[in-house]
């Protein structure tokens, strides 16, 4: 296998596996936040803000995988 092919495969693997965790995590965060908002609509604003921060933190591993994949591809 030449280097170029190995790089493409590596980028694909990095992104594919890296997307699993954040996918599960963000779904969980969003679902829980909606559940709470449905139960207590007045608290919606505060929960929405906190949900965004939690989502951003959850997402970060996915973004790291993305940056690594991009570095492999274009670096």
């Amino acid at each position, binding site marked *: 296998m030449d280097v170029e092919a190995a790089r493409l495969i590596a980028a694909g693997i990095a992104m594919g596996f890296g997307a699993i965790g954040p996918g599960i995590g963000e779904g969980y965060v969003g679902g829980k936040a909606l559940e709470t908002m449905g139960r207590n609509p007045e*608290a919606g604003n505060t929960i929405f*803000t906190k949900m965004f921060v939690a989502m951003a933190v959850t997402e*970060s591993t996915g973004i790291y995988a*993305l*940056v690594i994949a991009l570095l492999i591809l*274009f670096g």
Partner: protein
Amino acid sequence: MDLTITPKILTYIAGFPITNTFWVTILLSILLILVFVIGSHKMREVPKGLQLWLEVIVGGTRSFMDDATNSNKVTNRLHPWILTIFLLFIVGNVISFIPGLPALTYNGELIYRTATTDYNMVFIIALVFLIVAQAVSITTGGFFGYIKKFINFRSPLKFILAFFEIIGEIAKLISVSFRFFGNAFAAEVLLAVLFIIFPYILPLPFMMILLLSSVVQPAVFALLIMVYIQMSIVDKEPIVEKNHRADRMPDKK
């Protein structure tokens, strides 16, 4: 594909390399300053036109931040600063949706490149804010309190935990800057790939999503920075809360 992680150097001014993202950033700053100066040039009691919209932006973000920090003093100090970075990032992201910008070239290099796709810029801004967080920690908790957080010889476990605290601070910097840069650069790559697959039609729905994410990501960046700075405040005496919101918190049962 004409995509690289590092920005292209257009020219040198006195040995200082001028990259395409650099001058775009400077231009954005000048643009923002001009808009705000013109908007606040003749302040009226009843706002109209540009002043109205600027007041919507400033007032809206202020009340949002007031909700999140729950303290008028912290909001007063942080708001103008974080709003500036938020606006710089949001305008830098959104301006890339103007068509025709990637067609401009100079000496065979692209003149325009979205300012936020340069890791240097995002990294430096995140670094500045995290240094501020450390400074806040020192000024509120005292210098020795700050040192004690990182070096602790009381027990082996505490020593290791304090060591992890150092790693945590560096990880914050990397995570905040990587998150923003990753999103902005991935948007460019995604559009470039989609333009190859099916030009004109296929990128359109994705551009809508990218428009949303280019607004949300600066908000998340600003919010996270705010949370980090707020977390680094060591409260010896509890902060006087302007509006206590215990009555509006979700009922935990």
